[in-house]
């Protein structure tokens, strides 16, 4: 197969041999790929700063049908996240975005909407607006879960099927680590659900708005760590159930 150039976002790198790197990267047109960047850790490599995590690049590579790993020739930097590193919270947020993308996306399946989501959220984090880390990672988590096809129904109880958003009496919903989706207070009391956590009405409204509007147009502006923390927790649980392992950056993010 001939050489290819794809717009890509670098997800993660692993030292390999003396001075090479194995690079996991998400392309706009080919989905998630893995390749070897020869001599990438040497000062005068063909990659410059382009292989730092979540750098947006034009990646040149060579793909052989029989090989799992592609050969990376070089890359041209489109956008770097280096400027965000002055804020440790933002640096952890970048790791969180990279880990979720690495874990959630299947290899070699193009997902253009997911690619655009990542670019949008990176742009937004780069804006440096107050509270943008929390708003950015919450928006990202919600849409990542949705685009991976694992977002459960947010309006109905998985136990009894009742509407959770009855305008007469809107109530807190509940989720457990062992079951997908949300439950009403009644089913939570009667079902054997083990430990449960609540998902507030406010956070469900935020989720609803995020699914309808671009990130920059959300009405809720005063974002702090506490804002929709229950929603992030819920989304992280959906991801962890799906990938059958814990996300190591999720606790680091909430503690940063």
């Amino acid at each position, binding site marked *: 197969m001939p050489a290819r150039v794809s717009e890509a976002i670098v997800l*993660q790198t692993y*030292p*390999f*041999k*003396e001075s090479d790197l194995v690079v996991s990267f998400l392309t706009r047109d080919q989905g998630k790929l893995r390749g070897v960047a020869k001599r990438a850790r040497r*000062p*005068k490599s063909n990659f*410059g*700063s*382009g292989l*730092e*995590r979540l750098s947006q690049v034009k990646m040149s590579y060579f793909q052989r049908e029989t090989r799992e790993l592609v050969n990376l020739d070089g890359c*041209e*930097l489109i956008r*770097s*996240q*280096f400027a965000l*590193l*002055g804020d*440790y919270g933002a*640096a*952890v947020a*970048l*790791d*969180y975005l*990279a*880990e979720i993308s690495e874990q959630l996306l299947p290899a070699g399946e193009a997902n253009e909407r997911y690619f655009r989501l990542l670019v949008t959220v990176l742009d937004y984090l780069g804006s440096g607006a107050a509270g943008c880390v929390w708003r950015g990672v919450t928006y990202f988590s919600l849409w990542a879960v949705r685009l991976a096809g694992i977002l459960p129904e947010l309006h109905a109880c998985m136990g009894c099927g009742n509407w959770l958003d009855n305008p007469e009496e809107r109530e807190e919903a509940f989720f457990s680590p062992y079951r997908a989706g949300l439950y009403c207070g009644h089913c939570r009391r009667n079902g054997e659900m083990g430990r449960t956590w609540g998902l507030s009405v406010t956070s469900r409204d935020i989720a609803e708005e995020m699914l309808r509007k671009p990130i920059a147009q959300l009405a809720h502006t005063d974002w702090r760590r506490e804002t929709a923390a229950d929603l992030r927790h819920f989304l992280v649980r959906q991801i962890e159930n799906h990938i059958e392992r814990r996300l*190591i*950056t999720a606790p*680091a*993010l909430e*503690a*940063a």
Partner: protein
Amino acid sequence: MPDFAEPLARLINELKHLPGVGQKSAQRLAFHLMRASREDAERLSQAILDVKDKLGLCPVCNNISEGDLCQFCRDTTRDAKVLCVVEEPHNIIGIETTRQFNGLYHVLHGALSPLRGIGPEQLKIKNLIERIGAGQIEEVILATNPTAEGEATAVYLSKLIKPLGLRVTRIAMGIPVGSDLEFADEVTIWKAMEGRREM
């Protein structure tokens, strides 16, 4: 995979755990060792055991040391007012070969990387702050790698150390000597401009 005699298979398997050694290299090394004299084999195995038995971490700077303090912390001719912080013990070798630095070192044993499960608690930051608290140090040079992880670590440390009233500097990042500006990307040039000096 071919069927090797059990001791040979075991050696190949052990060698494969070494970084950068795959099945083929492991076989080549194992066959080489099999043909080597018994004395050569003993010297190699003893050298490996000595590294495990006779080396430890310096309690002051976390560098690898034989005995209690490492060679730099023991050396009273070195300038104890300047401290150079690096990620790994082997980074010291690179700085020492320049013969331009005569201060002391502090080895973090890694860089902040939540993605690899490394947070501030996993690094040797606590005894760095204790060393600074002892009062002798006037300048801390942050010589972590010029990568995203190294930069995040440097920024994190500078925020901890600066309020203590010390001079905190970061090694310059930028254009490698012998390369052409034309081929440097924006981050490399930006960092080089940031680290520019008076002439």
